[in-house]
């Protein structure tokens, strides 16, 4: 569910650097090879800052690959029923990284796609994950059948860790939602949300800033009422910002060349508040720096987690949004 990117400002606590990681090492890495001029594409400017991996707190899984049952106009990795750029991951695929994650002290796990509930192993994957840490699933809410919802509640009750389901909406009503997600989608999501409510699962509803007015206080209040209307007496709402890559690039506009980070506008130390200082993304093709850049070949840092603990150079347009908007994809 890659439209669900959280514009929550990262708390800026002047974090102590993780032991053994010296910020001065960053410049020791060679400049990235030059690349084309595409919107989210990197440039070869060696003055782009590097971000250190302070600690691998958040591990993402592109568990449904780029395969989705719908095709949103704002999907930043252009997922669709036919996009097999990244494939579904099996329980065994995920388990390998879960095992590696224990040794690295990972704090939390996020599952996205594509649509995670198209993955037949999804519930088994959650069961395995919840044995070792908290899990969050990002879903479009269309495949939340009653039996799936009941099982989610069972998994929630059985684990000592938290399980969160994040369902994304793009507006207050069918008209605005379906304009982005396709005809009839709103109605199916409403059924899914009711199933969640019946099973006693309280999702986080996420809404992108593509929805008119949702960023204002009034818009929020209205949206909270909408969520209460679905049967949730404790509505949980997150407002997310959009990345101008993938399909979203066509909906609005691509990044301009100046919309890149350089080492003068962002020091390596400041870069440590970016989510890529504490996350990695596992897909069927390997491990990427973050959940945003999975279509950038050079953002693939290795085959296994252990190969991806080095710094990463922030040379993409999306990196600019991350910094300027303080984006983190976590809940």
């Amino acid at each position: 569910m890659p439209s669900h990117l959280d514009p929550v400002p990262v708390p800026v606590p002047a974090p102590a650097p993780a032991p053994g990681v010296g910020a001065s090492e960053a410049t020791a890495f060679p400049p990235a090879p030059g690349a084309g001029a595409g919107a989210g594409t990197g440039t070869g400017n060696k003055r782009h800052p590097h971000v250190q991996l302070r600690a691998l707190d958040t591990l993402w899984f592109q568990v449904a690959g780029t395969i989705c049952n719908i095709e949103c106009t704002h999907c930043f990795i252009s997922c669709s029923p036919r996009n097999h750029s990244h494939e579904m991951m099996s329980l065994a695929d995920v388990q390998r990284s879960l095992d590696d994650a224990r040794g690295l002290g990972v704090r939390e796990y996020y599952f996205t796609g594509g649509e995670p509930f198209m993955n037949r192993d999804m519930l088994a994957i959650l069961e395995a994950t919840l044995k070792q840490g908290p899990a969050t699933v990002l879903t479009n809410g269309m495949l939340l059948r009653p039996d799936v919802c009941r099982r989610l509640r069972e998994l929630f009750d059985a684990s000592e860790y938290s399980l969160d389901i994040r369902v994304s909406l793009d507006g207050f009503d069918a008209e605005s939602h379906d304009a982005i997600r396709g005809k009839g989608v709103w109605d199916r999501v409403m059924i899914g949300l009711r199933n969640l409510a019946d099973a006693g699962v309280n999702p986080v509803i996420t809404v992108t800033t593509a929805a008119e007015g949702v960023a204002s206080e009034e818009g929020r209040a209205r949206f909270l009422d909408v969520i209460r209307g679905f049967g949730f007496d404790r509505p949980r709402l997150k407002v997310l910002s959009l990345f101008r890559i993938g399909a979203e690039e066509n909906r609005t506009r691509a990044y301009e060349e100046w919309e890149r980070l350089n080492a003068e506008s962002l020091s390596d130390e400041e870069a440590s508040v970016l989510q890529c200082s504490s996350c990695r993304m596992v897909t069927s093709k390997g491990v990427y720096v973050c959940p945003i850049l999975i279509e950038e070949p050079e953002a693939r840092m290795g085959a296994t987690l252990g190969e991806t603990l080095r710094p990463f150079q922030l040379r993409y347009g999306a990196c600019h949004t991350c910094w300027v908007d303080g984006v983190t994809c976590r809940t």
Partner: protein
Amino acid sequence: MRLAFLGGIYSNYHALAAALDDITRRNVDATYFLGDLGAFGPHPDRVPELLIVRGIPGIQGNYEESLSTRADDCHCGYTDPRDNHYAQISYDYTFANTRDAYKDWMATLPREIRFTAGGLRFLLVHGSPRTINEFLWRSTSPDVFLEKLCNDYDADVIVCTHTGLHWHKSLSEGRHVLNAGVLGRPANDGRANVWYTLVDVNERIVDVTFVPVHYDHALLANEMRAENLPEQFVETILTGWWTTCLEILPSKERTAGRW
């Protein structure tokens, strides 16, 4: 060796006085506060007063860091607009009613305390060893993550607060992480009492006791009303259920509460 830890006090000087009386009765060898002396409750000067008079050592929380640097907000680390709205009311009230001498005293507090007791290396922090306002909730703090914190920060026992909810996890190699909970407001469980934490440590064996503190919460509620603090805060003191700063709760902790 018996140690007592006082988590966030949030200006609840009645609960602090009751806890200190209880500690006196229990043969405690050393008592420490873990920061966030102000917020939420009334008359923020009374907590530092009491701690200084009793000579209790402790560390900065995000509140002391903000107040002592005259920052605009509490750096609580909330991300939801409603959470932040109420956090700002708390902070503005606390800022306006804390005298400069105490703000300056807060600047002198360390950010962490380390000592060895019962053969174990203790590390006292406010949020987490790495960040003053990191939330260590039980349901989002897997063992492997906590063990890594112990490794990275050279500690056998890490004691923290900041979230408002107490818990304890025994980890591999005889290590422990515990959140001491808070004296400032109830633990979102429908009971009006608040909590502090006792740790008995002898020959590398750790025994943790969370101690309920009953105090005159109705009096506190009246004083909060007299100070025009939000009725939502008063309700929490009276009912034991959190009404604000809820969005930051992980789903497990959220589900256990009323709102």
